[in-house]
């Protein structure tokens, strides 16, 4: 297997230009919303709203201003599939459509997916949705086709500020750590990395430098694998079956002494 590859997104240098969104749409031939009819969300400069089957990159605009708007800041973040080392979507996919590539990225094979949508509810980041054009679940492939040809993904290639950086995960992690130290020395004590270590789902192959709590960016503070509930839910179900069985046993077995008349409801 080739060395794990991924994205490091430094949100502090994102300018919200959406070049990544456009590059992603162009390269992956993704349709626009409502056939291109512009609908304003009313949520800052964000009109694509979220990641879904036809938006594999999404720039978030978070406005943190005081009531009188004299003081405040923008938080901008280009969001994408996290290509988790322990990927919940891959774990539950019942068709084998979701696979891990030689670059340690997670890809949905559209020709194998049958659109059951289990992966959508399994993803703790809300990344995956059905693309209405294909009827299958879709998300960022980390430009698997470009990677196979030795090219870098379209979004990071298009990013004008190097907010999105592509490379070997080991290189990206050390680069990101230096950037955190630089920011903290400059007085930005809130800077930290989200998903760069193994605490979050074994590590995210698309990790972030953030300057506020994860939930401010719409990221779960403590994402977990869906199978965490498998054993307990199965055992409780088994217990339910046993209890119902016992009730059947008591009601159908021990009625020999009852009168026939009582048997007629």
């Amino acid at each position: 297997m080739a060395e794990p590859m991924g994205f490091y997104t430094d949100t502090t240098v994102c300018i919200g230009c959406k070049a990544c969104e456009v590059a992603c749409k162009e390269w992956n031939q993704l349709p626009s919303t409502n056939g291109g009819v512009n609908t304003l969300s009313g949520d800052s400069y964000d009109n694509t709203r979220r990641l879904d089957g036809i938006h594999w990159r999404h720039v978030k605009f978070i406005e943190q201003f005081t009531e009188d708007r004299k003081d405040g800041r923008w938080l901008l973040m280009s969001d994408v599939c996290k290509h988790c080392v322990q990927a919940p979507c891959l774990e539950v996919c019942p068709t084998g459509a979701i696979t891990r590539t030689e670059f340690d990225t997670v890809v949905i094979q559209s020709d194998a997916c049958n659109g059951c949508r289990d992966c959508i509810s399994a993803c703790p980041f809300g990344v995956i949705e059905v693309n209405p054009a294909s009827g299958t679940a879709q998300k960022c492939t980390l430009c698997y086709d470009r990677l196979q040809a030795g090219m870098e993904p379209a979004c990071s290639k298009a990013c004008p500020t190097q907010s999105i950086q592509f490379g070997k995960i080991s290189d990206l992690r050390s680069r990101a750590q230096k950037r955190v130290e630089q920011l903290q020395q400059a007085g930005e004590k809130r800077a930290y990395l989200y998903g760069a270590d193994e605490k979050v789902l074994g590590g995210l192959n698309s990790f972030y430098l953030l300057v506020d709590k994860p939930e401010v960016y719409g990221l779960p503070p403590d994402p977990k694998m869906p199978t965490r509930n498998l054993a307990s839910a199965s055992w409780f179900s088994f217990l339910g079956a046993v209890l119902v069985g016992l009730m059947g046993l008591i009601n159908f077995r021990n009625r020999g002494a009852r009168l026939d008349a009582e048997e007629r409801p």
Partner: protein
Amino acid sequence: MNTFPSSTFFSAPPDWGWLIVLYFFFGGLAGGCYFLAALIDVLGRPEDRPLARLGYYIALPCVIVSGLLLTIDLGRPLRFWHMLIESNTFRPMFKYWSPISVGAWALLIFGIFALISFLAALVEDDRLTWPAGRKFRPPGMLSAVFAMIGGFFGFYVAGYTGVLLAVTNRPIWSDTPLLGMLFIVSAASISAALMILLARRSRSTMPGLLALHRMDGWVIALELIVLIALMISLGPVFRAWLNAWGLLLFFGVIVVGMLLPLALHWRRQWLGERNVTAAAALVLVGGFILRLVIVFSAQQV
């Protein structure tokens, strides 16, 4: 700002709608009726067998409807077989840790059991000539073993849907381990209710009906306990039900589907002859609303 009771609140809804609600309902009826029929065959008396046959007669159409609903709900229905056969390699597709994968196989296997039991019931009723079919009806070791294995798969089909919901990252669904247990107990209660309704509709006196009615009372009480335990297990996530869905859960499921039927069990004089029928009808309505609330409420958080 932005306080969330659980990290599950950042996932996206899978858009499982009415087809899945109906599937959970009919799947519960299929599995539950088969399980009860098998229970009556194994534990009951010979004169209870018409009641068991009624269970098998319900289970097969319900499992067929279940399969159709699941298939239609897929984004690509013609690829339904991808659940069972890996489309790239044509090898069997099975992930024991993915409830939807195991459930697809369980539904297939249960369907075969339901078909054979359905045909065997027809043979016993002298409506079908199939000499080998008689072996699948009691008395006899084969019929008992067959009923027990089929009953296991029946209950699996009825309950795995709750486990499936728990093995996600959606609020409510994955914030409690009790949905599978609730669905299994509910499947038993709605199945007993449907069998009681259909048995009384046939106007023939079926021995065992009173036992089934009495058992349903116990199961409804258990279901109420499990539902309350489920609500407690949600912890702070329970606030996701402090809305119209919570009201529907309380009035539609707890009051209409559980408390009223239980009251009818205790107060036989209320509606006289119609007491049993009314209780059974209410249980069915409550069972349907339960699945409706569980499926939709977690997707509108």
